[in-house]
C-alpha cells in the first residue's frame, strides 16, 4: 500500500518560489496566470498493511514531521 501526501503552504503565507514562477509564466505570454503555488508531494510505501492502517500511520507522520502546522496543510491519498 502506498500513500501520497500533498503538502500545501497556507494561502496567507508567502510563497516566493510560486511568485517567481508566476512572473516567468507571464513573461512567457501566459498573462492570465495570476497565482502559482508550489506544493510538495511525499510518497510513502508501507507493504503488507491495509488501507486504514496506512491512513492512520501517515496522518501521524504528517502531524509529527511531514508538514509544519505553523504554515502548512496536508492531504493524504491512499493508493493500492
Amino acid at each position: 500500500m502506498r500513500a501520497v501526501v500533498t503538502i500545501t503552504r497556507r494561502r496567507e503565507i508567502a510563497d516566493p518560489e510560486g511568485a517567481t514562477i508566476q512572473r516567468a509564466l507571464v513573461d512567457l505570454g501566459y498573462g492570465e496566470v495570476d497565482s502559482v503555488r508550489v506544493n510538495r508531494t511525499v510518497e510513502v510505501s508501507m507493504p503488507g498493511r491495509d488501507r486504514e492502517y496506512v491512513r492512520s500511520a501517515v496522518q501521524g507522520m504528517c502531524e509529527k514531521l511531514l508538514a509544519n502546522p505553523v504554515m502548512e496543510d496536508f492531504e493524504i491519498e491512499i493508493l493500492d
Partner: protein
Amino acid sequence: MTVGIVAFPGTNCEQDVAYALESLGAKTVTVWHRETSLDGLEAVVLPGGFAHGDYLRTGAIARFSPIMAAVEKLAAEGRPVLGICNGFQILCETGLLPGALIANRDLKFICRPTRLRVESTDSILTRAATVGQILTIPLNSYEGNYVPGPEAPNAVLRYCEPNGSVTEAANPNGSTEGIAGVANSSGTVAGLMPHPERAIEDFMASTDGRVLLESFIASVEATPAGVSGG
C-alpha cells in the same frame, strides 16, 4: 560554567561559536546530535549550518535527533537555550520558539552585514544591550524569512535602517515586521538568523556580536542550577 554546542550532520558553525564564547570567558563542549544527555551543562547553543541537509524543511529532521529531548528538558528547566541561524530554524520546528522560517523574499542566498535594532532586553540574547541599540551583524541564509505563528511573537531584534527605523527597504529577506530574532515569553529560549559569533573581533566588520553573546553568558551565570543539578 560550561555551554553545550550541538553539532548535527551538516552543522558548520560549531567551532566559530565555541571560539566566540570561549574568547568571551565561557567554557564550551561540542555535543554530537546522537547523544541523549546534556547533564552537567548549564546552557546549550544550536549553531548554524544545514542540519541533515535541510531536507524536507530546515530543522524538520533535526528536531527528532536524539539530543533534542535533552535540549527540550534544559529549556523546561529554564536554562538558556540559543539558536543561531539553522539553530533558530530548529528551535522553531521544535516548538520551543514560535513561528517558522521560509525562503527569502527574493529567493537569493543573503550573505552580508545587516543592521539590527534591539527591541527588548528581556531575553538571554539581549539582556546586556539597551533597547533601541543598533547592531551590525552578518546574515548568512537562504531561509531567513520569518513567519510568526497565530500569536504575536516576542521579537527581540528587527532589521533596521542606520537611524534605527524598521522599514521594508531595510528588511533583507521579507521577514514579517522585520523580525530578525525572537524569544519565548520568559526570555530563556531565543533565536536569531544573523550570526553574532561572526562579529566579535576587531579584524571583523563589526564587534557588535559581543553584546549578544555576553548577554547569553551573563544569563547562564545568572540562572540558578536546575533540579537536575545543572
